[in-house]
């Protein structure tokens, strides 16, 4: 079946602009996660959604970052007023349930470059 998809695959933006990154999880997966992969910090957790429950935003680095998940499926990560330190690969993952034993399946990522 189809895996996790993300769009765009690459995004170049100017400092100060807003960007939206999209994630389509695997059909039937109720849990959705966003991570960030950057050279200096490695892989960092950003935000977690479980079904229609309130998300865990504890990993978001600043209030310029926000995310939503519509209808318990597609998710959008928005970064406002982008800064150069936001340059990274943003990875989305989904799992069948939030039970920790369930595997997280990762998408190919969106490479964000802020110039």
């Amino acid at each position, binding site marked *: 079946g189809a895996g996790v998809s993300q769009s765009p695959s690459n995004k170049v933006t100017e400092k100060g602009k807003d960007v939206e990154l999209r994630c389509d999880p695997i059909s039937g997966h109720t849990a959705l996660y966003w991570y960030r992969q950057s050279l200096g910090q490695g892989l*960092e957790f950003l935000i977690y959604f479980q079904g229609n429950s309130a998300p865990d935003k504890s990993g978001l680095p600043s209030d310029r970052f926000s995310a939503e998940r519509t209808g318990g499926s597609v998710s959008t990560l928005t970064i406002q007023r982008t800064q150069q330190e936001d340059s990274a690969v943003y990875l989305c993952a989904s799992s069948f349930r939030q039970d920790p*034993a369930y595997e997280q399946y*990762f998408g190919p990522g969106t490479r964000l470059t802020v110039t």
Partner: protein
Amino acid sequence: AQSVTQLDSQVPVFEEAPVELRCNYSSSVSVYLFWYVQYPNQGLQLLLKYLSGSTLVESINGFEAEFNKSQTSFHLRKPSVHISDTAEYFCAVKGSGAGSYQLTFGKGTKLSVIP
């Protein structure tokens, strides 16, 4: 809270030689342990995982990892590497209790297989 340390950022090894990629973790609770692999320009793929039971887990492509609770380690090994194993490998940990869903990753080890 958990943390993961991958002691080697880069490991060069000749083709058909054995390799060990080291991973140590710290956690105040019981954990599940994972190894993910990231091939060049691709997303993260689960290589193997330890949830419970036998402390030695194997992947379909010849890798194995052993959970050592006393040493808080989950080292990844392969007796004979191939060129196609060239990739970055990430060790990750997740709490096994209810409400645990966030993966905490090590900073990765780049395995380069030399012909």
